[in-house]
């Protein structure tokens, strides 16, 4: 662990020296991280690769995680001290597929669901894709790294639940309005990451406006490698049958229209 930047009382960014993982990571992939020593907590936890860190000569030095405190491991990672060794396995899972211009990329992030979009925005930027980030949080102080996205030329559409920044309410509201307003023959790819409800709404809205949508789902993951079958998502296949698909192998990025939302 080479840096721990606490952004708020719940959020921090952890920088890890892990050059080979970072160099291999694609936007949307994740790493499995072991917090604490001993057997409690026991299992690793999945985290999106937030940033790929580089030195002056642009050599990859490591990666960072955007961490939100919600339980045992995330609390340990929030309080991690410099120099601690944090085991990190990856990159794992299927990444987002970045589109090419002239298709526009509309990213939809809820809370810590921002994490995979920093690297995705980089990839889109280097492909010259016009991108928009729809980003919702509880309050203004929990909207992070806006300058990073602005710097990449990403248009920002912000919402907060308390109205302290951007539009008041849910992030799917402006998304839907914009989709409704857009010409059907102007191609858009929707990317989404955030709470289950937000993902389901986003996927349904995308279907309604006939847009493809890649969602990054969040399941409790025991292994991240396909070994435990803990992380399944019900997917509807063409014949209408529902199959349980392991989101660590087939995902975390999955086609939103095929997920059988509850």
């Amino acid at each position, binding site marked *: 662990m080479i840096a721990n930047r606490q952004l708020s009382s719940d959020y921090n960014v952890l920088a890890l020296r892990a050059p080979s993982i970072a160099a291999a990571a694609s936007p949307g992939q994740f790493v499995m991280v*072991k917090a604490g020593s001993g*057997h*409690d*907590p*026991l*299992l*690793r936890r999945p985290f999106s690769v937030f940033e790929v860190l580089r030195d002056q000569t642009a050599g990859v030095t490591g990666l960072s995680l955007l961490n939100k405190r919600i339980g*045992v491991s995330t609390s340990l990672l929030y309080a991690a001290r410099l120099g601690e060794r944090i*085991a990190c*396995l990856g990159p794992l899972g299927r990444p987002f597929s970045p589109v090419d211009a002239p298709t526009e990329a509309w990213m939809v992030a809820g809370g810590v669901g921002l994490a995979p979009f920093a690297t995705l925005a980089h990839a889109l930027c280097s492909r010259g894709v016009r991108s928009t980030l729809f980003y919702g949080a509880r309050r203004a102080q929990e909207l992070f790294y806006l300058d990073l996205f602005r710097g990449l030329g990403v248009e920002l559409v912000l919402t907060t639940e308390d109205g302290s920044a951007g539009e008041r309410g849910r992030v799917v509201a402006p998304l839907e309005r914009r989709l409704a307003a857009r010409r059907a023959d102007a191609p858009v790819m929707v990317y989404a990451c955030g709470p289950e409800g937000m993902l389901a709404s986003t996927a349904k809205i995308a279907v309604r406006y006939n847009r493809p949508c890649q969602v990054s789902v969040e*399941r*409790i993951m*025991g*292994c991240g*490698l*396909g*070994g*435990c*079958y*803990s*992380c*399944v*998502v*019900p997917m509807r296949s063409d014949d209408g049958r*529902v*199959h*349980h698909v392991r989101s660590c*192998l087939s995902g975390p990025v999955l086609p939103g229209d095929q997920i059988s939302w509850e």
Partner: protein
Amino acid sequence: MGAEMDLSVRIGALTLKNPLIAASGCFGYGVEYADLVDLASLGGVAVKGLFLAEREGHPSPRIVETPAGMLNAIGLQGIGVRRFIFEKLPELRARRATVIVNICGSTLDEYVEISRILSDAEGVAAIELNISCPNIKEGGMQFGCSLTGTFDVVSAVRKVTRLPLIPKLTPNVTDVASFARASADAGADAVSLVNTFLAMAIDVETRRPKISNVVGGLSGPAIRPIAVRMVYECRQAVKIPIIGMGGITDARDAIEFMIAGATAVQVGTANFVDPFIWPKLIDGISDYMRRHQIARVADLVGTLDTAAGDKEWTAS
């Protein structure tokens, strides 16, 4: 001494190159790990429990972490034995894995049918009879919690296969040793234990179970002391080999089971925490043998020295 160290162990007619087996349900079908782990370097790979037919298993959440352990109720999602033979076995064979197929049945006939199919397949080293899955109604617990049920299913499968037969025992019983005895009497080549402990966890804020299936099976380091005791009890009860498991996380834990009486061990939950555990386990055991001048790992089995102990105790 290094060069002459013998890590091999025998389970009936089967020789494993070392005592370390990936536990069923914790290593997918093995192929998922083929790029991370040299499958041929393992003593064996016990693949995920298979029924005759495909199954989708339980809805999520399927696991939850508990102190030094985890609860799971996967519900035996699986591709069924036939697809396994066609889709997975060839790669396992190509990787020279020693494949132990873990099987489940809703009925005695299903166990028999699956065993018959597996006996004709190429590349199956042994059958592990899962009569102890706590997570589904038809998970074999009706067999695994009854002595006659255990005897009957093992006998029936014994009649249709010459493959080494390893009933996997549940710890959710008063006297596990009697189930080891019933298995041996019915012709099992070995027994494996323990499967998981029936357990549950509640989210107090919602007052709902933390996993969709309400109850699940507890695994991981938390259960190790109970599992070691059960292996030790079985060791006094039967002569057939015992494959011990439950919370093994390092070479020392594996050796603990062997000293208690296990000829081989399986590692499940710890493989989730560290998929690179396998070479560490093998090296750790070799290192221990070197330090203790043990030439054959099989000589470790059942060497617990209780002489100093006050032997006044009840094995329930």
